[in-house]
């Protein structure tokens, strides 16, 4: 294969398809972590939502019911996580990892119990979420660039993709221009100050966890009822951790975090494209080395450009009214 086979347009489209999984999860993490609760359980919530969404969508043959059920379960788990790390003041890292492990096992066991297909749900078939074709797509499809731009790049994705991108300004607005956002940030930065200002720290954190649960569920639903069309064990495949990385990378700010997600999506797409490409001088780089690209880039970027990321100050610390 030649170097000219390398298609930039396809990389961009692929980036847009890859990013939502990370974007939902990263925004979920953003709510939790800006409120001071480390959310290592993104992975677990994603899996749970992916399973429940797929199972319910299959049972009802309606993707929207699936998404709704996914929201419910993910929110419930987030509240449980809240109970452990806010009410019980338990170690938030432990809570997160424990939930990930437990849900990785439980989703398999349940999927196996109900469907008997080795921890897989049946194919959703028509109960998958359809791709939206923008009005007038046929008309512009033939036009060079514009056609591609309108029908492939910004059009032809599922509703969840648009929701993911719409979240960026929305989360920004909530965080910086609403009462909830102000309180959320205060609680994550200095809960004692917030408490002294008459804010119920625990309630605010619970609200944040609820947001995190809801957002994270879309990530799971996207995996199972948009990208794959069924649930498979451990299908989150580390995306929850990658989303956290994007969050750190984006300094816990919505716009930068979304950029981080897009960057990961981009490198994943790039990696697919350069597999098997003959580089002048280098020859064919082995696939397993190309798989490293997104991770190496992250490390390099973290070490170089964005060395100083500043976490919310109270992150990981349960709020205890004491010295």
């Amino acid at each position: 294969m030649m170097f000219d086979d390398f298609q930039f347009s396809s990389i961009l489209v692929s980036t847009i398809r890859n990013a939502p999984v990370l974007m939902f999860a990263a925004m979920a993490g953003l709510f939790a972590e800006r409120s001071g609760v480390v959310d290592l359980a993104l992975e677990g919530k994603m899996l749970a939502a992916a399973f429940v969404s797929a199972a319910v969508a299959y049972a009802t043959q309606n993707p929207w019911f699936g998404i709704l059920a996914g929201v419910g379960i993910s929110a419930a788990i987030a509240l449980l996580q809240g109970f452990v790390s806010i009410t019980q003041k338990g170690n938030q890292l432990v809570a997160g990892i424990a939930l990930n492990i437990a849900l990785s096992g439980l989703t398999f066991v349940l999927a196996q119990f109900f469907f008997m297909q080795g921890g897989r749900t049946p194919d959703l078939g028509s109960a998958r979420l359809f791709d939206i074709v923008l009005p007038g797509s046929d008309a512009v499809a033939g036009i060079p660039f514009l056609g591609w731009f309108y029908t492939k790049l910004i059009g032809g994705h599922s509703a969840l993709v648009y929701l993911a991108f719409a979240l960026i300004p929305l989360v920004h607005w909530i965080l910086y221009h609403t009462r909830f956002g102000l309180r959320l940030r205060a609680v994550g930065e200095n809960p004692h100050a917030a408490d002294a200002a008459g804010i119920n720290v625990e309630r605010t954190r619970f609200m944040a966890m609820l947001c995190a649960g809801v957002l994270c569920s879309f990530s799971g639903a996207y995996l199972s009822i948009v990208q794959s069309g069924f649930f498979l064990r451990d299908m989150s495949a580390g995306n929850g951790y990658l989303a956290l990385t994007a969050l750190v990378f984006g300094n816990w700010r919505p716009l930068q975090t979304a950029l981080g997600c897009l960057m990961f999506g981009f490198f994943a797409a790039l990696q697919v494209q350069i597999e098997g490409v003959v580089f002048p001088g280098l020859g064919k780089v082995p696939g397993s080395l190309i798989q490293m690209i997104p991770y190496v880039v992250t490390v390099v970027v973290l070490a170089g450009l964005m060395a100083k990321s500043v976490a919310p100050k109270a992150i990981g610390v349960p709020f205890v009214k004491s010295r």
Partner: protein
Amino acid sequence: MQPAVEFQHISKRFGAVQANRDVSFSIAEGSIHGVIGENGAGKSTLMSILYGYYRADSGKLLINGQQHDIRNSHEAIDLGIGMVHQHFMLVENMTVLDNVMLGSEGGFRLQKNRKQLEQQLRDICQRYSLDVDPLDKIEDLSVGVQQRVEILKQIYRSANILILDEPTAVLTVQETASLFAVLRLFKEQGKTIILITHKLQEILDITDEVTVMRAGTVVGSVQTANTNKEQLAELMVGRPIETHLPRAPYAPGETVLDVKGLNLINAQQVSLLKDLNFNIRAGEIVAIAGVSGNGQSELLEVLSGMHLPSSGTVSMQGKPLPFAGRKDADGLPATFRELGIAHVPEDRLRDGVVKNFSVMMNSFLGYQKKLGKAFGLLDYKTILKTCNELLSKFDVRPADPHLRIALLSGGNQQKVVMAREMASSPKLMLVGQPTRGVDIGTIESLHARLLAMRDAGVAILLVSVELEEVRALADRILVMSGGCITGELKVEEFDATRIGLLMGGLHKH
């Protein structure tokens, strides 16, 4: 007239510590009421109960004659109670505006309210002569200004009962004066103010009535007009306080520390220390006076090895300190300690102690290398013995070496740090704000120890914002302003007005 606040038989205990025991007294409406007492007497605890931060184990709380069970600060705020805490309760990475707004935003969307509030704050600042820009970020502000933000918050929320827990501990004389001006305005408006302070002069200056606490109980309430410093001090401590400490005549030895052309420029290219030149001789106390934030902290950090200077030389007993050829100060303080430099840091909670270590584990922080035996094993038996000696010598309460140091009151933590640094028998002692937030009984004993060290021939550099302290301890006084030394005088020439001018930066070289 009905009292604004009435405490009835309030008790509160933390584990083994009875912080408040059957506390009863009342505060008249529209008055300024002082509360004093030694470190750990239970003042902050009592006020925290009033503000809903803690809940009393037993007892009643009456606000304007009505019994209330205040479960959280939200309910306290609803009752018109406001509190300015000992440690500021501000969100550092937010603006003044957002901090004031927090908790009383007036609606879900902030945009419109932000505009309104900004104007309102500018008006308030003008009316009360508070110099604060609502759009500044807290982390960029000096402590004095942060204090004003706390006040601003209370004005905005129109608190009727205002609790101030040691508001003046970090303020300069001028700042204190302007704070008091505001408090007097409040009083004119009929607000009730509760003021906790360790500075008896302030009690005399501004309060109407004062309640004295000791070991969790109230030992008495008196009308301010009918009392004086000595009487209050005796009530507090249970014995008369010596205000004039004896000291040997000034007879300095050879030069211990010699600073030449010292400069410090930070990453933002701001010059924090400008061409400093001074020396300290054995057996003298040199005090640096100045408004905090004028380079004193940085000077201490450089001299203790925590920070590298940009240029200049510092010699210790004739030998230059090993700044040269280093990229950062990582690990440097250890070298400095070996050279005989001890350091009591200004911010003890941040730098001076590891909060989650026990008192014993903190009692050798910085000197851990000295204690390692074979294979670096620590000799806990000796450590414990030494620690117990220090605790009893410095009268740390409670004298429990295994207690987590965070559970000691601020004053007692300070005693532990002082004890540790003094015990290292240094040649040069750097002391930052040694008595900040410390009660007068303790101040007396700490001062006595510093003077004894001086008499024993140790060179001491004291940084303090308290002019009283500077006067009581120093042999020579350097005044700093804007990173420069703006003047030097002997203690005999002490003149508060002149020092005030020098601190303001009106220097003549």
